């Protein structure tokens, strides 16, 4: 921008500001609009949660007629849900898959993120660049060969098949590498002088220092696994091995879905991720900040 246009801009801006500060109501109106906009957004964001909880207490016929107040059918809906769904088994499947996959993903991806950042070499930088390129290849492009691989290995319909392809996550590797940039190198140097080996530094220095990064990654990975749909839909084929996400989808696909019962199940399926989010919320935002920096 040249200095003359800058001066012009500033001049015209100054008159505008003069008008605005001269009229306090104008600023008040703008403030009010911001609150209005945010309130509408917040309402729209939260309403479906309210709807889900209220729906769990209403019969299906009322739900599809738009009844948005508490009803008396909670127990009926619960009974129908537990009669149709082997809930302990299904929730165990979901929890087992999500917990194991999250633990493995964090371990493997944080090791790699640390390795890429701390031990830079030309070859490894090239590999890292290649991985970032692969990040943009959609899952659809590998799902058919993956399915053929697992069916040839006779692993279709097992937990292993659901978990294994997800544990080396390029996104989480990238995330840990970014966060490692903020890891103070003096700590590592000091630990080295104390005679710690690299794996000891990783385990006893890096890991405790980076706990908010791990917390944030835990949320992201756990939710992704708990909510994962397409790949489990392909490899989990018998009812007793399915996750809650798959069961909910199957119930919704019925010709006349029983929404009361389904929304009851949806509440159950959403609770774990909601609880984790509220417990780790501050960590989550901290971790996100680390990733963007």
């Amino acid at each position, binding site marked *: 921008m040249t200095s003359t246009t800058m001066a012009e801009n500033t001049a015209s801006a100054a008159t505008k500001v003069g008008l605005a500060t001269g009229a306090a109501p104008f600023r008040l109106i703008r403030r009010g609009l911001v609150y209005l906009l945010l309130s509408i957004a917040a309402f729209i*964001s*939260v309403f479906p949660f309210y709807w*889900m909880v209220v729906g769990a207490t209403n019969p299906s016929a009322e*739900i599809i007629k*738009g009844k948005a107040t508490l009803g008396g059918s909670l127990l009926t809906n619960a009974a129908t849900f537990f009669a149709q769904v082997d809930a302990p088994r299904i929730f165990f499947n979901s929890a087992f898959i999500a917990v194991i996959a999250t633990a493995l993903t964090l371990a493997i991806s944080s090791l790699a993120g640390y390795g890429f950042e701390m031990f830079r070499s030309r070859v490894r930088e090239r590999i890292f660049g290649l991985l970032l390129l692969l990040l943009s290849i959609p899952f659809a492009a590998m799902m*058919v060969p993956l399915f053929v691989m697992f069916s040839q290995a006779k692993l279709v319909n097992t937990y292993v098949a659901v978990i294994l392809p997800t544990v080396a996550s390029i996104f989480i590797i990238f995330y840990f590498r970014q966060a490692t940039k903020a890891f103070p190198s003096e700590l590592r140097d000091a630990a080295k002088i104390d005679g710690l080996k690299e794996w000891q530094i990783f385990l006893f220095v890096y890991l405790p220092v980076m706990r908010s990064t791990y917390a944030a990654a835990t949320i992201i990975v756990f939710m992704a696994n708990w909510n994962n749909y397409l790949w489990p839909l392909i490899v989990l084929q018998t009812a007793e091995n399915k996750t809650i996400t798959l069961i909910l989808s199957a119930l919704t696909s019925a010709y006349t*879905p029983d929404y009361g019962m389904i929304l009851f199940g*949806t509440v159950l399926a959403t609770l774990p991720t909601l609880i984790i989010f509220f417990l780790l919320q501050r960590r989550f935002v901290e971790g996100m900040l680390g990733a963007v920096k």
Partner: protein
Amino acid sequence: MAQARLDRRDQITGWAFIAPALILLGLFMIYPIVWSLWMSFQVGKGMNLSFGGFANIMRLTKDPVFLRALGNTFTFFIVQVPIMIVLALLFAVALNDSTLRFRGLFRTAIFLPCVTSLIAYSTVFKSMFATDGIINEALMAVHLIGAPIGWFSDPFWAKVAIILAITWRWTGYNMIFYLAALQNIDRSIYEAARIDGVPAWARFRYLTIPMLKPVILFTTVISTIGTLQLFDEVYNFTAGNGGPSDSTITLSLYIYNLTFKFMPSFGYSATVSWVIVVVVGILSFLQFLVARDRRRSA
């Protein structure tokens, strides 16, 4: 600096740290990707495949369902991504004002949709979009519509419902990225601009947008990839068929149907999946170009 030449032992340690990830990625990502590229030139049903050269690509051009899926995916992408990015930016800028009351509450509320699974929220939305349901009721109460909309029986409104649902689910997610980036911007720049009398919109246009450009680019690319892979919501809304009459079928849903629903044609479905790869590649490249051009002219 870490740039210093590594000795032999450090080299070995470096490889050891990344080896588990590389082995897994090689096995479950790179190998399947290469395989599917090879598969995309194969024709035949089931495991009876033979080399067909460009036969699959020719078939693409004459396949009405594929063309429909490609068109739908583009519609979702062109309409949904810009709306979501603009809304997310708007909310982030509003929430970045430290004098605003209830910031934490607003932020949590707008981010909340991200904790739901794609299946859970599409189920909830499906029940809200019922013909006599709450959405139609509300729209009629404020006289926006005269008669109930058949959200899932009309090809146009079915698309609108899906776009509304996706926007609900992902706006807060993008907003968090912008908020994080905004908090990294040095406040004194804004103070200086304000004292110089630069109005709010100009501060937004000439300070905020350029400084957020890398994050905007990042979220746009991520959203593009996400939208082009759209599957869960459409599958759940339409009981897996992309109806009414293929009006909401997406590329991913078509690949799924080709592979697991009809007599499997692995080769052809691999070809369709590589269409997504190529489109994602082209769009990401264009987005990088646009971002770079703007920087040059600024």
